[in-house]
């Protein structure tokens, strides 16, 4: 369901209601319910999202109890859900009507809220058709949690298929078309040659002069997707390079090895940040020999003179009743999460647009970790870093086994984003 449909669905009922009182709760049914606690009592946090998602897929309804016991879920106690939870190792607690009343009372009296979840979103992951030599934390979490998704790539995006989905994920992609500057360290690697060839062939097939032009076209489609009401979640390189690609319409921001021409020496001054979502006044990295795109990234992991050590980031608290969307996005059983590198690890605070909502940052640091915003009818969320449970991931490293990280607070942030489009949303007040 697109965001505008959410607002249409819930806007009218809210008129005339005092914002400070809770809405009448959505009564799932008269049958008992199942509480999926999401605090330390939960045996498998990540699969709990999957159990909830599949309950919605079966046509059921659920509630997300924001800030209640780590952001718990309330589901109908039907045999299919119970079986699913048992097989997945998800801890459930039967909740009678009396139990539910007590829960709602606690929610009403505290900074908590109960958000109905109505429909499982249609999820797309933007990824090349072949296997890449690195992991995608989002696809891993979707697979592990058992959440259906579809892979789409440049031909599908350019052909307009994004409108078939409600949620889109981007991860590694370099939307500036410079292959993440992997030439600097992996020149000669077979997988890089293969990636370059594949992208160049795709550009040719779609009638585009080169890969940077192809990726800009894709970036434009993604912006259109968001502005039409879609939900975008991006991590790692995709965050920074998507923004640059959007702002660089008509500007050459790619190295010669990408498009045959040098980067415009005045590129930084020519970028149009009204076209991007999150950042502004960014200074691009002019040297093609430096493994960095711009000064958006605070950690600059592959730029030795500027590389910053990892710390930990803290999730912000929001008013669950007034700001349900950011509250949903930060649901976790841990407030402080160890940081993790990516080609883009963090976002310099001074590069953020003023209307960006910061969801998490590192105390005392000039960068933030997790941000969210709106663009016309849709929303976007960016999380810096590559893999929450692999802080210093290198290409060729073995993939993360999420069964060993079933309670990962970092991965919960990813899955919060997957589930949040399922929510009915009230008017936002940031």
């Amino acid at each position, binding site marked *: 369901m697109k965001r505008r449909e959410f607002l249409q669905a819930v806007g009218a009922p809210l008129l005339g209601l005092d914002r400070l009182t809770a809405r009448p709760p959505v009564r799932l049914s008269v049958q008992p319910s199942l509480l999926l606690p999401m605090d330390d009592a939960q045996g498998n946090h990540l699969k709990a999202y999957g159990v909830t998602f599949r309950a919605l897929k079966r046509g059921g309804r659920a509630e997300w109890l924001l800030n209640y016991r780590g952001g718990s879920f309330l589901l109908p106690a039907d045999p299919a859900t119970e*079986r699913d939870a*048992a*097989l*997945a*190792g998800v801890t459930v607690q039967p909740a009678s009507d009396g139990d539910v009343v007590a829960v709602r009372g606690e929610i009403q009296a505290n900074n908590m809220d109960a958000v109905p979840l109505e429909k499982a979103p249609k999820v797309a992951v933007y990824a090349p058709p072949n296997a890449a030599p690195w992991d995608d934390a989002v696809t891993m979490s979707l*697979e*592990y949690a*058992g959440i259906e998704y579809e892979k789409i790539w440049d031909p599908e995006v350019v052909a307009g298929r994004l409108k078939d989905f409600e949620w889109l994920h981007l991860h590694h992609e370099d939307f500036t078309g410079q292959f993440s500057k992997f030439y*600097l*360290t992996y*020149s000669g690697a077979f997988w890089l040659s293969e990636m370059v060839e594949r992208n160049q062939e795709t550009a040719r097939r779609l009638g585009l002069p080169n890969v940077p032009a192809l990726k800009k076209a894709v970036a434009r489609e993604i912006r259109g997707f968001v502005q039409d009401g879609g939900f975008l979640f991006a991590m790692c390189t995709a965050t920074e390079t998507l923004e640059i690609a959007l702002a660089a319409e008509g500007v050459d921001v790619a190295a010669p090895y990408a498009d045959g021409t040098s980067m415009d020496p005045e590129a930084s001054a020519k970028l149009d940040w009204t076209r991007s979502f999150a950042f502004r006044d960014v200074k691009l990295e002019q*040297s093609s*020999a*430096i*493994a960095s795109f711009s000064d958006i990234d605070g950690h600059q992991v592959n*730029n*030795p*003179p*500027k590389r910053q050590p990892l710390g930990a980031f803290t999730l912000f608290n929001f008013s669950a009743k007034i700001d349900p969307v950011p509250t949903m996005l930060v649901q976790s059983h841990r407030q402080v999460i160890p940081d993790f590198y990516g080609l883009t690890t963090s976002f310099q605070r001074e590069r953020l647009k003023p209307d960006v909502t910061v969801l998490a940052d590192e105390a005392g640091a000039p960068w933030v970790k997790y941000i969210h915003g709106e663009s016309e009818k849709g929303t976007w969320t960016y999380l810096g870093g590559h893999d929450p449970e692999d802080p210093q991931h*290198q*290409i*060729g490293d*073995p*993939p993360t*086994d*999420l*069964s060993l990280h079933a309670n990962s607070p970092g991965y919960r942030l990813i899955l919060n984003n997957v589930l949040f489009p399922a929510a009915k949303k009230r008017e936002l007040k940031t």
Partner: protein
Amino acid sequence: MRRPERSNAEVAEHAENAEVNLVTAPRETINRLCVLCALCVLCVGTSAPRRALAQAESRVLAEAGELERLGRHADAAARYRGILRTEPTSVPALLGLERVFTSLERLDSLVPLVRAALARDALNQTIHSLELRVWFALGHSDSVTAAARRWIALAPRSPDPYREWAFTVAQRGDLAGAKRALSEGASRLGDAALAQDLAQLTTLAGEWTEAARQWVAVVRGNAALLPSATGSLTRAPAVARDEMLSALLGVRGDSTSRRMAADLLAGWGRADEAWPLLDATMPQDPNAAAVLLQRFAERTVTARSRRNALVRGYALERLATLVDAAAAGRVRLQAAQAYADAGDLAAAQRMLERAGAGAEAGGAVAPAMASLIRALAEQGSAEEAERRLLAWNDRLSGDDRETLRQAVAWAWARRGELDRAEAVLAPDSGVAAAAVRGWIALYRGDLGLAREQLRAAGPYTGSREEATRRMSMLVLVERIGTDRLPEFGRAMLALARGDTMQALTDLEAAARKLSLASGRADVLGFAGEVALARRDYQAAEDLLVRALAADSVGPAAPAAELALARVQAETGRTEVAIHQLEHLILAHPQSAMVPQARRLRDRLRGVVPE
């Protein structure tokens, strides 16, 4: 270059006209003037000794250093500038100004001073390096290049300009630029001049294959740098190593590159691959050969596998022929230990004999002898192991005596000589000995005594693997409702000897003698797991199905279901296996097998990596 002589008036006038950075109280001005006056006094007369000037400069430098330490950078700058007025090429003053101007964010003020210094001392390497650093810090990359080129023009045969230029741009992360600078130098001065710099740079850049080639060139020029070279290259990630080795071994007939490859392989724990390379390129010179062999032995001291231990033995044995007699004895003992660890008892024995490790040999031989006894016991030479143990009993450490008694007892037990095994353990009352006695009782079919001894041994003695085996066996034996079951004992002894077929036959015989209530299902389930471990999937499935038919709800059922699911998965029936696992999870939610079942289910469904 001599400083031009100055008259007193000229010095005083210069001092008065000098640019002064006064940011503190007039007191500082007075201090400065005092300094200048001190300098003036010292300059009086054309016959003022240079030594006095040098002493004055030292004093001022010391003052400036103290001011820096106190954070009074502006005052320190004034001191340094004062020195430069009389000694424009004073390197300590220039370097001091670099520090304080950086703190004051006035580094651009250093540029004319550096240029003035170079005008007087055009070949001073330190000042040239300083100029590069200053331009770099100011962000003027073109000026860095220009400064480097000026230096090159002044010292066309020196590698220093290229080296410093590369280092400066590398600091900015421009490794490609640094490489270009070094390559330019190499093209003009020859490969050898900057080979080590290029090698270090390519290593830093993670260009491992190219780095390996560069380091070969370095080591060809100076063999003593082999440890540095391989020390840098050892850090290469596993994905890069094969290509590095191909590059090294692809150069025909080059002993340097092969020795480097051997050293790298040894450092990567692949000593068995390293040895043939090293052996084939051993230098004729005995001293050089001894150095390489010693290094190989050091690199392989943590060798874990038998193959690695064996080649370590080869290297040590050869090394013993190249060193003096006193060292040879020690080396042969190390070789004996390595051979024993590798299971080559004959070679271990040979080394001990040549090391003079007879009956009268002392405590230095004891560790090697302990390894030999252990190896003899593991290989089943129980008599020989026991004989040597008795002969060396007083010379071994207490821990070695205890563990070797257990090893010898195991050797007897595996041969079925259970009485002799118990006799060896007689002096021992510890929990480790109780563990061995528990197994011996098991082999006799005395399940009552086995339970008692295995419980006494507890869950902690021995390795983790041994402890797990022991506890698992105790759990099984606890469920068998009889104190004597010879068939079960025979089955366990057959398993210890590796005769799985006989073990399965005896286990089935044991199960037939048990009722449903006294552990038939448990024994059948165990037999099924034995068959599964042997990859006899048909037998395993038959036994496990019978175990579940005997008892599908008792404590043995989850383990049998899990094993059955593994059989189904191994025989390609993935969906059947998933269904089996789901049944296990839902029917036995409290079972300790459930986490394993969930993980296997996830793996079969492809949601976690293999």
